[in-house]
């Protein structure tokens, strides 16, 4: 399918660190979904040839001079989208866990003008098949509750990095995006800034190579950092963005 007119120019933002084995396939899959999408791979100072492979598959590559972490890398892509005047941005992981064939579902609420931010959630549909390990399941659920409570809207999956943004969303995240473990806090910032959030059920694949950036040792830091960030974010004042454009 091709993106409808109402989505305007579309860019796919893909942060990647040492993903040379899968990055080519990720780029090809997005191209197969829609050949008109511009694909931007942000190479977070990989030690392998991720950047070259992405480039040879036709992606625009932004090379960070040193590793800035996933959030800083993603934000580079949003800054690119803002500077190059894209109307819509989608963000997928560079490891292939986000299925490009699900993009159509992700973009539908934007196309209908119902949302500024669409999150691909693994838990909208209670019958979903995704069953993470117990500890992670508890973590995901606790953060979802906390963000729902502080943000005033029920959110089912705050740890998903599979999302789509309209122009307002691009502007917000280009200006404000946490540098490490960004997804949970970014969701709350979006809600508190008045963005309209939609969630759609998506399938996610098991990682094809490498391991999740959240190892067991880091999970304590993750929980502490994200909890603190959420509590502080709920004390901060965010300007309400003008989202009703039509």
């Amino acid at each position: 399918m091709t993106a409808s007119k109402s989505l305007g120019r579309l860019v796919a933002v893909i942060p990647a660190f040492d993903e040379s084995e899968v990055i080519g396939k990720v780029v090809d899959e997005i191209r197969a979904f829609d050949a008109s999408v511009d694909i931007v791979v942000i190479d977070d100072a990989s030690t392998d040839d991720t950047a070259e492979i992405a480039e040879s598959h036709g992606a625009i590559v932004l090379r960070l001079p040193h590793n800035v972490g996933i959030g800083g890398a993603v934000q580079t892509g949003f800054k690119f989208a803002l500077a190059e005047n894209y109307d819509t941005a989608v963000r997928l992981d560079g490891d292939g866990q986000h299925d490009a064939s699900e993009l159509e579902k992700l973009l539908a609420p934007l196309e209908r003008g119902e949302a500024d931010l669409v999150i691909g959630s693994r838990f909208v549909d209670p019958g979903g098949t995704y069953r993470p390990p117990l500890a992670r399941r508890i973590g995901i659920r606790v953060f979802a509750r906390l963000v729902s409570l502080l943000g005033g809207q029920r959110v089912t999956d705050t740890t998903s990095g599979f999302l789509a943004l309209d122009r307002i969303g691009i502007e917000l995240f280009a200006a404000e995006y946490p540098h490490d473990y960004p997804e949970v806090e970014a969701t709350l910032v979006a809600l508190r800034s008045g963005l309209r959030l939609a969630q759609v059920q998506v399938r996610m694949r098991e990682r094809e190579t490498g391991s999740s950036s959240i190892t067991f040792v880091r999970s304590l830091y993750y929980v502490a950092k994200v909890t603190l960030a959420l509590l502080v974010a709920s004390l901060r004042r965010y300007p309400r963005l003008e989202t009703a454009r039509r």
Partner: protein
Amino acid sequence: MTPLRISIVGVVASALLILIVLELIRGRRLKERYALLWLATGAVLLVLSAWREALNTIAGWLGVTGYPPAVLFAVATLFILLVLLHYSTVLSKLTDENVELAQRIALLEERVSRALRASNTTKL
């Protein structure tokens, strides 16, 4: 009352701290903005070491009855904490600026190489 020997050591140590900081500033190895807290630390410790009656009085206020020099250590610790906290804020700011710079370089490099490609194709 504080033992005289402790007062002397306190005066010498805090004077030494002030001199070292001044020398670092003179040699441009320390910026004034990061030196001010150190100088304040040195000055306060110098005053409290030299002016023994004052240290005694403050110790009395704080309920430190047995050993007035404990106040000296407490004040020194407090100032070190302040300096460290200050550095944490500086570090956070530098981290943010550093990420911002890296992002701009990545964006600029892409724009430059795109512009170069475009100008090469027009030349051909």
